[in-house]
């Protein structure tokens, strides 16, 4: 089957998993469905496929994530929609005139779909604001965030230059004859000085989260093939890695950025591992401040004891093992695709570096976190 994580599904392409499956030539007989757990969608597709295979329901699953945030629609307000409906339903000339007369210019004002999508309706904070919250309670400074962002950009630039994405990144070609063969959000000339000039994006004038130290709003897609042992034998496949386990956690939406800490720790506990025993980490860079807050949480004895129910601080995560080839700050965070991409890249980076055990994890808008424990083979 085909499972696709996708958040910004547009009306023209309902159930994009099925549309992709048909357009990929999988045939009419291939079931396909789309999953959505906000930022976790691209990882959820892998997890669902993993559980189906474990369960014996499927042998070969194509699991992916895709989002085209640039195609987010502008939406009419509820009032405007009701006006249209009234006009369409008007049967007599009188009713039609009445409907027309109730039109107000304010009905023309569009709602920016993307803006609403990135705002949590339960706590009425947008994603960037939640990053401000966690930055505050873990004492992450503006400078810390900018510094992290610069390092992320430079790691990405070097990875691109050194060809670390060969075999992972497929060039895309549009019908105008244009090639897209690298992620163009990279800023190789990033510096703390240049980032310091940017104004806060979400909470002015004193916020710490800026466009420069946040993930970029982009388009992207990723696919992985999951196979059972039987399928590996049957099709003569060469597995790259094994999914050992996954975990989803949930917490207060206003501090959603800490999601990765909860779910990753649950995995570590379940398998009797410590932070250090994980060879490589991919922790989605929704915001530099948010990543740093996660790292601070693991180093915080009170948090670890009271929230994670550990004996003491989990430890200081080795930054040299984290997002070694850059992350969403330079690559972008096409919401539904990221979860899938970080699993894929984790595997490729482990293979390249000859490492064995890795965790891919991400925070999820709405107050959740997802993590996968992967072993390279």
């Amino acid at each position, binding site marked *: 089957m085909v499972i696709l994580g996708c958040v910004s599904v547009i009306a023209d392409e309902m159930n994009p998993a099925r549309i992709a499956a048909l*357009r*990929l*030539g999988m*045939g*009419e*007989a291939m079931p396909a469905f789309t999953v959505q757990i906000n930022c976790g969608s691209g990882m959820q597709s892998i997890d669902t496929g993993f559980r189906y295979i474990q369960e014996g329901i499927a042998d070969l699953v194509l699991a992916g994530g895709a989002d085209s945030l640039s195609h987010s629609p502008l939406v009419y307000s509820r009032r405007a929609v009701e006006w249209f409906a009234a006009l369409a339903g008007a049967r007599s000339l009188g009713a039609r005139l009445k409907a027309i007369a109730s039109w107000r210019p304010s009905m023309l004002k569009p709602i920016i779909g993307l803006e609403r999508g990135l705002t949590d309706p339960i706590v009425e904070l947008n994603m960037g604001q939640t990053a401000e919250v966690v930055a505050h309670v873990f004492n992450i400074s503006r400078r810390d965030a900018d510094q992290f962002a610069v390092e992320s950009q430079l790691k990405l630039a070097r990875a691109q230059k050194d060809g670390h994405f060969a*075999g992972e990144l*497929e*060039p895309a*070609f*549009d*019908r*105008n*004859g*244009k*090639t897209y*063969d690298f992620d163009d959000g990279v800023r190789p000339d990033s510096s703390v000085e240049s980032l310091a000039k940017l104004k806060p994006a979400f909470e002015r004038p004193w916020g710490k989260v800026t466009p420069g130290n946040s993930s970029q709003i982009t388009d992207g897609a990723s696919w992985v093939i999951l196979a059972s042992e039987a399928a590996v034998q049957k099709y003569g496949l060469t597995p790259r890695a094994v999914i050992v386990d996954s975990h989803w956690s949930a917490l207060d939406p206003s501090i959603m950025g800490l999601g990765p800490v909860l779910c990753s720790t649950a995995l570590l506990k379940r398998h009797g591992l410590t932070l250090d025993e994980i060879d490589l980490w991919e922790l989605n860079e929704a915001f530099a401040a948010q990543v740093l807050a996660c790292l601070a949480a693991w180093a915080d004895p009170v948090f670890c004891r009271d929230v994670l129910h550990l004996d003491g601080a989990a430890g200081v995560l080795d930054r040299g093992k984290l997002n070694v080839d850059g992350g969403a700050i330079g690559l972008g965070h096409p919401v539904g695709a990221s979860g899938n991409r970080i699993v894929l890249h984790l595997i490729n980076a482990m293979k390249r570096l000859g490492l064995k055990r890795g965790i891919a994890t991400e925070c999820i808008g709405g107050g959740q976190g997802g993590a996968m424990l992967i072993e390279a083979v």
Partner: protein
Amino acid sequence: MAQQVWKTLEPRNLELGPHAPDGGEGELGSWKHWKLRRDEDGILWLLFDKAGSSANTLSQEVLTELDDVLSKVEQAGAKGLVLRSAKPAGFIAGADIGELRDAKNATDIEGRLARAHAVVDRLDQLRLPTVAVIHGYCLGGGLEIALACDYRIATDDASLGFPEVLLGLHPGLGGTVRSIRLVNPIEAMSMMLTGRTARARRAKALGLVDAVTQERHVRGAVKAAVAGELKARRSNLLVSLFRFGPARALVAKRMRTQAAAKAPPAQYPAPSALIDLWEKHGGDAKAMQRAEVSSFAQLVVGSTAQNLIRVFNLREKLKSLADGKWDGKRVHVIGAGAMGGDIAAWCAWRGFTVTLADMKAEPLASAVGRAAKLYDKIAHRRIDVRDALDRLIPDVRGEGVRSADLVIEAVPEVLDLKRKVYAGIEPRMRADAILATNTSSIPLDQLSEGLRRPQRLIGLHFFNPVSRMQLVEVISHPKAAPEVLAAGRAFLGRIDRLPAPVKSAPGFLVNRALTPYLLEAMVLFNEGVKPETIDAAAVGFGMPVGPIELADEVGLDICMHVAETLKAGLERKMPDIPNWLREKVEKGELGRKTGKGLYEWKDGKPVKATEVATPTGEMTNRLILPMLDVCVACLREGIVADEDTIDGAMIFATGFAPFRGGPMHYARQHGVADICATLVRFSQRYGERFFPDAGWNKLTP
């Protein structure tokens, strides 16, 4: 497989009324090609299902039977008559061309036509309402039959037209009269003069059909038509206007100029005959019908029509070479250059999943861009463009070679490069896959050296532009397996190309025949003849473009390369490649692609002087006869099997004057002895290169 779901249901989709397996009473008569049944609403359904043929065409036998059927219909007292085809692919494809072949006696033809007209008139004059239900192709005589009905209902996929002009004819079964009576006469004339088809939606807009619907609503549409509920769009004003002679005279003048610009009336008389017919008789249906018959008869016995009918048969003959079965679904093309990219695009258009590989990403990107442009031009629906582009898969790492049924190699013409490519892919290819090379100049036995499975190598030599040039030379070599060659031909059939089997030899057939033509043009140019004059000599003969323009189009560098290869590989004497040509190539003046060659090129068109000397017959012969000579040589050397293949290949790959029926046919019509004499004379006056090949003497009379 879910594919089975629609496969099982599809046969029910064609609405055949009482002829459905479980429907209606029995037959109302027994005929070979027709079936007649009455449905529960009292409507007669007349089904045309030509025996022994996958397509419906009108033959004398068919029309004679129809006459008998109509007798039954007249007596049946039914509410209405539906005329429909039982063939899944379409309604009626036209008249049986075979019956027009070798027509010599115009009076004979007139007699046959008059009898045919009587049958069609009888259909027209039936009292009860008659409805033609049209799906798929409805061409020529088929459209004429449909026009004789009171109503026409088309399904979405219907395609209507008058292609007679492409055979050097015009409609001869009343189509000229009935079409101008039904739709805007200018539009009708345009259809008949160009042979272009109108799809369902356009046909409805013209008023050619009265409703467009889907199979699932045919029954309802038929009932509405019979009950007189179809609101047909009629161009009554324009139809009435052009009943006036002066109105027609005004328009006819412009039509003549336009037609003459496309095809000289001396070579292609049908358009002017049609315009004359309309101008003279457009206001009097009966007179026009009589004149149509005699005009048609005159045309069909003429050499142009007979030669174009011959060309039609040549096409069918080449098509039949592609008749085998080959189930391959995936094609892998290596080399995304001008040819490789376009071959890949065409195969994807025709339904294959194509992986296109190249060492760099940019050629892949431009190939996709060119493909999108092509699809936008030729597709009727947006989703067809999308689906074709989905099937064209840029393959940076060449992964597709592993699962391909056919690999087409289209890398630059360097032996070592090709060998290197083969060495890299052969171990990864499937053992049952075909390896085809698009080489135009490297002998296949050289390419087959070093292959583990040389028997699976064949040549598929495409011509530029791939989407328009139907001919593909299928090149064999001593080690090639016959079943692989047959599979290659079958593949070409599936992508709607015409295979011309040719043995591997320098230049194969087409390039070898064109080279002396192009080089002689250079000799004439050197002698001081203006390029416009040289080109006019060839175009006057009937070539689509002259040799100078063609050389610039192809690229002077490529022409030179081909000429050098042929000079080296063949014994035959050829004109030397002039130094000034080499200099031009060195300077980078390569022709159209660089904006300057022998002509200056602007916006993809050559800048030609308007006042030029008229070419002499001698000039024309100097250009054309060497082409014929090479054809004869290829026949003698056994490179091509027979004269028909030569004629078909030359016409469909170079556009060699179709109205002359092909180079070999022209040679025979003109007189072999005369041509040889001329060649001998030329060899004395202009050079050894003209001396006629030994093969001329060996031609069977």
